[in-house]
């Protein structure tokens, strides 16, 4: 449940901020969603994969004879053929030699890497045939541990790169060494964020169909990715306008990971080669091991320098990310946190050393928050340690350091301005909602009854808006500064409104967002406004729903287009009524003279004039009512400076979590008694949607904190292939959650909205770790790695003598 409160909202809204049933729900609750796996085309064939059992090997020989002889098998594709026919997938950092192909050839680099694709009339027959394929491998050395991978003389995952350190950069913003030397105390600590991911319930699914006659490749895919059609065209050596990605496919959850480039290139190639539609739905085994959708896997070594009164002056952070066997976009996941590197705190100088390391493991993919959640976990751990060192309350220490509400826009050392916020107010709201005094009492009672019990606090930023300036920051050869979104809005001859968005949705209720925004501007009932998804041939530029950007960017684009239409309607009315447009009032379904209400013109008349009565249009006006708006991200458009400073995301949402939990000291099992999240994302266009994201994000974070990990054996074998190994929290693990809303509008957006797609996830692992360590501190124990499973907590209890703070 949630308690909404908008004391700082700029204005009263008609539709924005109200409870409204999401448009998308109508089809989902009756089972009429349109997911990629639902697509059936005549003559369609199916793909199954043969994957490598070894983490590192050379392919010696592939014998597909028995497979090809099986009735119903259409073809068998090896990497040897595929690699010659397509362009490699390249990393987002400057390392063009680190190439990736959908099928490995000749070198295997992780256990589960795809080796052979079998095409058959059914998926079942394709799997039968896959079992008959014999692959001869010569095993090679391998490296699994990222710190080991950095050592000289270790096996190189890509020989040609001459190093496993595919990205290495040190940023120094301000006089860090000096500040650390001058302050009263320093602490050093280490935390380990385990490799986890968002693991949507729908695996990646793709259907491709190529037509010789039109030279068009149709793609229906469970996709959430910027520049997907472009990368696809490039890899397949097709002109961009030969690729038609259908963005009206419903995506069954993504939260970052559904990039599926290798899946789609593979299937597209097969569709083109065989001239028949091909469908590939990853099964769960293929997805977990070789779907390349695992997440950040980080070691943080942090130093914080602080004064006796709690002021944290300076921070040094070293982050090593084990990105697996190929790079893709993921090293950039170390870069996005640069835009909020000091969190919500007034830390004056920061040094950040980011390293991305290759190992013989499944590659990572972008995960919700793009690296911010692990970074927040690292920062918040330090805040708690400083408080404990000074014997200060963790709440007071935070308040000592939180940026105050009169300091915005606030410039952080790495070059980003935080737009607005009132962090202390959100923290206070969360504490009040949780009844912090009651929580203290409850904690004490639990402790008296023999449990370990702790309260956790986190105060974290959610950067939003998707100015992906980390791209040129981490790869100066990539001078991209355009991060845009578009919307086209039409009012048709019948007076009904249709809006077109140019990307896919995976549960964010964009159709609801866009129709609400347009309704607000044009004062039409949002239920009558239809929102459709284009395909990539008729789409306006989009950078897809990443970086919590769509409320800001798609909302802004929809508003921009609607405003242009509103201006056009006013101009038509002014011409008809022979008034100055400034003397007219735009109202629901009519425009009238503000001095005489009876001097008016109705919506339907205006629409008729626009579409049918050219003789009544003002001069130089286009017929019809259709406007597009293509919008660059606010505060975007600059390249980084040479000292690595850049404005990253424009808008900064904020969350504060308060958690009470207990631990059975004999079993290490955790029980959460109370969970409160204070949340400020400016004006909420759709409060139900925002709350839903936040609950879901908290559940994601709880999983990462307590139970989720992609594990590998020391021999490089992947151990977390099924849902019995990789544990997703169910309704019995996720507690009841209370959300308390606050609103500091953004000065940069149409309605004051900020993004919220990553809400909850960015702050909950930190809060849960904070609570567990508060509990363990009573017996001088602590835990500095995730996931904090019962076994891990029990180990920490046994290992009471280890200290994580050093001066």
């Amino acid at each position, binding site marked *: 449940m949630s308690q909404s409160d908008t004391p700082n909202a700029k204005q009263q809204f008609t539709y924005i901020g109200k409870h409204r049933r999401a448009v998308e729900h109508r089809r989902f609750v009756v089972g009429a969603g349109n997911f990629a796996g639902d697509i059936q085309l005549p003559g369609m064939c199916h793909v199954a994969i043969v994957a490598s059992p070894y983490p590192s090997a050379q392919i010696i020989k592939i014998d597909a004879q028995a497979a090809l002889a099986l009735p119903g098998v259409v073809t068998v594709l090896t990497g040897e053929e595929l690699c010659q026919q397509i362009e490699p997938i390249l990393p987002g950092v400057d390392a063009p030699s680190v190439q990736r192909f959908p099928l490995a050839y000749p070198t295997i680099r992780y256990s589960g890497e795809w080796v052979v694709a079998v095409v058959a009339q*059914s998926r079942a027959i394709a*799997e*039968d045939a896959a*079992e008959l394929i014999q692959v001869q491998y010569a095993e090679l050395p391998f490296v699994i541990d990222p710190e080991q991978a950095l050592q000289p003389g270790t096996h190189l995952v890509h020989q040609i790169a001459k190093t496993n350190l595919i990205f290495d950069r040190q940023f120094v913003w301000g006089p860090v060494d000096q500040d650390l030397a001058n302050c009263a105390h320093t602490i050093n600590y280490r935390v380990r964020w385990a490799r986890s991911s968002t693991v949507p319930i729908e695996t990646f699914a793709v259907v491709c169909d190529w037509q010789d006659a039109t030279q068009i490749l149709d793609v229906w895919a469970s996709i959430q990715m910027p520049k997907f059609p472009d990368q696809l065209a490039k890899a397949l050596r097709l002109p961009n306008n030969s690729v038609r990605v259908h963005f009206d496919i419903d995506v069954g959850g993504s939260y970052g990971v559904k990039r599926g480039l290798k899946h789609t290139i593979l299937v597209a190639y097969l569709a083109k080669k065989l001239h028949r539609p091909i469908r590939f739905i990853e*099964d769960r*085994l293929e997805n977990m091991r070789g779907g390349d959708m695992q997440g950040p896997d980080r070691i943080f070594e942090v130093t914080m320098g602080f004064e006796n009164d709690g002021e944290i002056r300076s921070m040094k952070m070293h982050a090593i990310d084990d990105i697996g066997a190929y790079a893709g976009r993921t090293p950039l996941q170390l870069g996005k946190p640069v835009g909020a590197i000091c969190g919500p705190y007034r830390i004056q100088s920061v040094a950040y050393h980011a390293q991305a390391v290759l190992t013989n493991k499944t590659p990572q993919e972008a995960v919700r928050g793009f690296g911010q959640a692990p970074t927040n976990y690292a920062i918040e751990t330090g805040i708690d340690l400083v408080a404990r060192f000074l014997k200060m309350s963790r709440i007071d220490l935070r308040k000592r350091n939180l940026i105050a509400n009169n300091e915005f826009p606030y410039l952080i050392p790495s070059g980003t301005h935080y737009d607005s916020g009132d962090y202390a107010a959100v923290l206070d709201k969360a504490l009040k909602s949780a009844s912090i005094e009651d929580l203290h009492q409850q904690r004490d009672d639990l402790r008296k009854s023999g449990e370990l019990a702790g309260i956790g606090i986190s105060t974290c930023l959610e950067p939003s808006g998707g100015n992906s300036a980390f791209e040129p920051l981490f790869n100066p050869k990539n001078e991209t500064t355009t991060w845009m979104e578009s919307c086209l809005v039409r009012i048709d001859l019948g007076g009904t409104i249709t809006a077109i968005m140019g990307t896919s949705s995976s549960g964010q209720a964009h159709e609801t967002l866009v129709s609400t925004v347009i309704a607000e501007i044009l004062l039409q009932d949002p239920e009558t406004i239809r929102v459709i998804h284009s395909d990539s041939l008729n789409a306006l530029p989009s950078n897809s729903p990443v970086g919590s950007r769509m409320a800001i960017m798609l909302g802004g684009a929809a508003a921009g287009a609607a405003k242009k239409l509103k201006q056009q309607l006013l101009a038509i009315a002014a011409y008809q009524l022979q008034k100055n447009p400034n003397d007219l009032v735009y109202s629901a379904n009519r425009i009238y003279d503000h001095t005489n209400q009876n001097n008016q013109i109705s919506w339907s008349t205006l629409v008729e004039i626009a579409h049918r009565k050219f003789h009544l249009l003002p001069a130089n006006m286009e017929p019809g009512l259709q406007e597009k708006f293509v919008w660059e991200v606010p505060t975007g458009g600059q390249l980084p400076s040479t000292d690595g400073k850049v404005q990253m995301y424009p808008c900064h949402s904020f969350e504060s979590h308060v958690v009470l939990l207990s631990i059975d000291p004999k*079993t290490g099992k955790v029980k959460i008694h109370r969970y409160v999240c204070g949340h400020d994302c400016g004006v909420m266009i759709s409060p139900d949607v925002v709350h839903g994201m936040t609950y879901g994000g908290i559940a994601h974070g709880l999983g990462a904190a307590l139970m989720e990990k992609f594990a590998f054996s020391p021999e490089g074998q992947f151990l977390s292939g099924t849902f019995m190994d990789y544990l997703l929290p169910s309704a*019995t693990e996720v507690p009841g959650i209370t959300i308390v809303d606050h609103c500091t509008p953004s000065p940069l957006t149409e309605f004051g909205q900020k993004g919220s797609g990553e809400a909850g996830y960015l702050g909950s692992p930190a809060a849960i770790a904070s609570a567990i360590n508060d509990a363990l501190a009573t017996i001088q124990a602590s835990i500095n790695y995730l996931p904090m*499973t019962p076994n891990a907590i029990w180990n920490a209890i046994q290992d009471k003598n280890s200290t994580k703070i050093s001066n």
Partner: protein
Amino acid sequence: MKAAPFDYHLADHLDHALELLDHLGNDVKLIAGGQSLVPMMAMRLAKPSHLVDINRIQSLQQINLQEKSLYTGSTVKQKDLESSHISQAIPLFKQALPWVGHQQTRNRGTVGGSLAHADPSAELPLIATVLNASLHVQSHNSQREIRAQDFFLGPMWTSLAPQECLTDIHWPIWNKQFFGSRFLETSIRHGDFAMASAAAQINLNPDGTIQQLSFGVGGMGATPIAFPSLSQPLIGKHLSSEAMHELANQAILLTEPTSDLHASASYRMNLARTLLSRALLGAFEQAQQHPQ
């Protein structure tokens, strides 16, 4: 994850099923609820050439509750053990069944299926072991009774021969007077296989001494384990709380748990010791509190 091809045979009565088992060779598996078998076939860890479906055989679905015994046919659904009159007779069912997967699992999964699958962490095999239930097993030309403590041989391995079918299970019912039982398990998520589990059941004499005692642990080795060598000598004796802790300690020392992704062997030992201790204490307390 599509199963490998197989042929399917629906048995309408037990003799038919046993004949099929006899004729179809060694690469045949029985299927009832399929909650363990079908996922294994989907992952191609099991690839039988033939499935014999026994889920429609009426004679295997019977439940017969008597004063001292509960007889369940092997294809009785797990959810049916949650009914009130059965769980009054054997409260361990009521305590354990909420941990058996989720409602979907128990709506299809069968009692015999769980026992024949013999996962060392599963709840029903542990209860069967602690109660030393008697399993009735038949083939085309033979039948025999096997005690639960002899039935489980290893992980996913029982003393069932390839042509044999588990047909019914006889669960002993203890005295209602001075009775206590406790089933505890710890898993990371509700419904997962236990990292370790413990079950204890006790009858006391009116003077507070032990009339009957049985306890065991699951997830602590190749099979569920009961400890008759430890419980038998206690008959007629009093048992203090400290002695119960010590008993749990001794029992765990007899186990050899393995490490896996979710739990190390040493954590398991500690966990099982804690759960067994608590199960014994809980059962004992209940027995003392509820004379009838």
